[in-house]
């Protein structure tokens, strides 16, 4: 089991992912924008990040860029999430490993967590 950071300004989405992953035995930390997400990353080293694209204060692309510039964070797999198509975002978002189009299904989240947490060298599971 691992630790997952969920960064999303939509409370309901973050809470849903939290509930799904806690049921799977993971620990979840929530942030409501990219800046808060980076603050969490300064204290925690999660096994996986679910990162929304459109957020106030700091969006997903900026947070991804900051993670890419920090050697200690580069190995954390990031699932980029958005309600707009991946093709629209792909060019401006570097470093994510998977894309989750909103609205998503519960099984999409569990499958991603199972696949990506297991492959993360930093995983505590």
């Amino acid at each position, binding site marked *: 089991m691992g630790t997952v950071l969920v960064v999303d*300004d*939509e*409370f*309901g*989405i973050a809470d849903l992912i939290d509930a799904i992953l806690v049921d799977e035995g993971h620990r979840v930390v929530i942030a*409501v*924008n990219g800046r808060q997400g980076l603050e969490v990353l300064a204290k925690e080293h999660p096994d996986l990040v679910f990162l929304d*694209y*459109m*957020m*106030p*204060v700091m*969006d997903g692309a900026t947070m991804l860029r900051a993670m890419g510039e920090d050697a200690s964070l580069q190995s954390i797999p990031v699932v980029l999430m958005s*309600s*707009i*198509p991946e093709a*629209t*975002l792909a060019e401006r978002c570097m470093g994510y490993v998977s894309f989750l189009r*909103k*609205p998503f299904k519960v099984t999409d989240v569990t499958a991603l967590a199972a696949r990506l947490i297991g492959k993360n060298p930093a995983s505590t599971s």
Partner: protein
Amino acid sequence: MSGHDDSALDRLPSGIAGFDLILNGGFLKGGLYIVQGPPGSGKTILGNQICFNHVRGSGRALYVTLLAEYHARMMQHLSIMSFFDSSKIPDQLAYLNGLGELHANGLPGLLGLLRREITKRGASVLVIDGVVAARRAADDERAFNAFVQELQAVAIATDCTVFMLTSAQGTRITPEHTMVDGIIELVDQLSGWVAESGLQVVKFRGSSVLRGRHAFKITNDGIIVHPRIEALLARPSRPDPGSAARVQSGVDQLDIMLDGGLPESSTTMVMGPSGTGKTTLGLQFLTKCSVSEPGLLFGFYETPPRLNAKIAAVCQPLGSLIDSGAVEVLWQPPTDDLLDAYGGRLLRAIHRRKVRRLFIDGLGAFLQAAGSEPSRIGNFLTALMNEMRVLGVTTLYTLEGPDLMGPTTRIPIGDLSSLAENLLMLRFVELRSRLYRLLSILKVRDSQFDASLHEYATTSQGLVIDATSDSAERIMSGYARQSEGVAPPDRQPRERRGR
């Protein structure tokens, strides 16, 4: 010395044609507006439509929700709308959720977030969806008033036009109502089994608007607003030229009876029961169109195939005029749309081709479309016909009466004098197991006319009217005698009578 700040009157069009007409060009830039209405009345669609219309060019907009409705779901619903353009998201149009900030830091936090995001993104339109959540988060009314006041200051300082969407409505006046620059109310009401959507500009600072309620529809093209025709045309768009000229009616004998034809730019009502030839007369009226004098057939009941068949049977010259573009045929089912939608469509068609001859086949469709507000129809038609007059359009329209035959004729509409300057009546008269058709002129604007009854027939050449009233005289006197039990005069049928 400070000069006038003209930018204060710069407009932000909603991009919804009918709505911008009502607003006299659009919202005032940098203004703060409330859009209120019950759930399902179309607020979110309206807010998004304004955003997408704004970003169609180089504008930038921000849509901030304080609701439980997820952006992904909202976009799924919006994606079927023609105005939705995913390529504008997120660079020109961003969707953010402000509820987290509101819960974490209250109204000051939300206000800070809005100000920073407007500035950072260069947004000139901000929609806040679910303002009721902000009101609930306020410690008291004073705190919420302060939030609205500061938001207004942000709107002015950033030249960003702000729309606050809220489900609050009704007659209760809240302090924010007095503070904002405008209030748009959306209503959704049942009339019998039919749901009717209406929009009203309750308040609008700094500009005149078309007051009162206006109908709208939510379609796959988003919200389509139909300004109330009586309000839109409360004053005709230009002075009445007062033409004394005559135009041909399309029926030679009728022109003689009219003392030279129909008065130019006048309105003629043709009344009569079904089957008397009203539509045929209208078709003949349009045969006098040309490329320089374009015509329009605005019809409701005769579908295009049936109309084509009728034209082939009784008014062949019209076919080539339609083919050449001198005459346009616009058909719509009478159950399809709103009264003001018909009015707007008619006006646009008139302007588009600078129509000079208009034939409306089936005025009853307007009555039908008035639905729950039949009292509107008089003012609606008066405004419409006044506009036709000043535009130089000679109009002829048909109105079907309920009485198939007999000595009396009931007219399903009041105040005829304001609706038609010229009145023609077509009727059946039954005599000795045979139907005869009679035409009479009841009224012509400022003109002499032949007031006697004339018999007519519908032929392959259209209506053919007897040159004299002799036969009509015989029929009517026979009818009178028959009513009294006296045998009618013998009459040999003529070749051209009847079809």
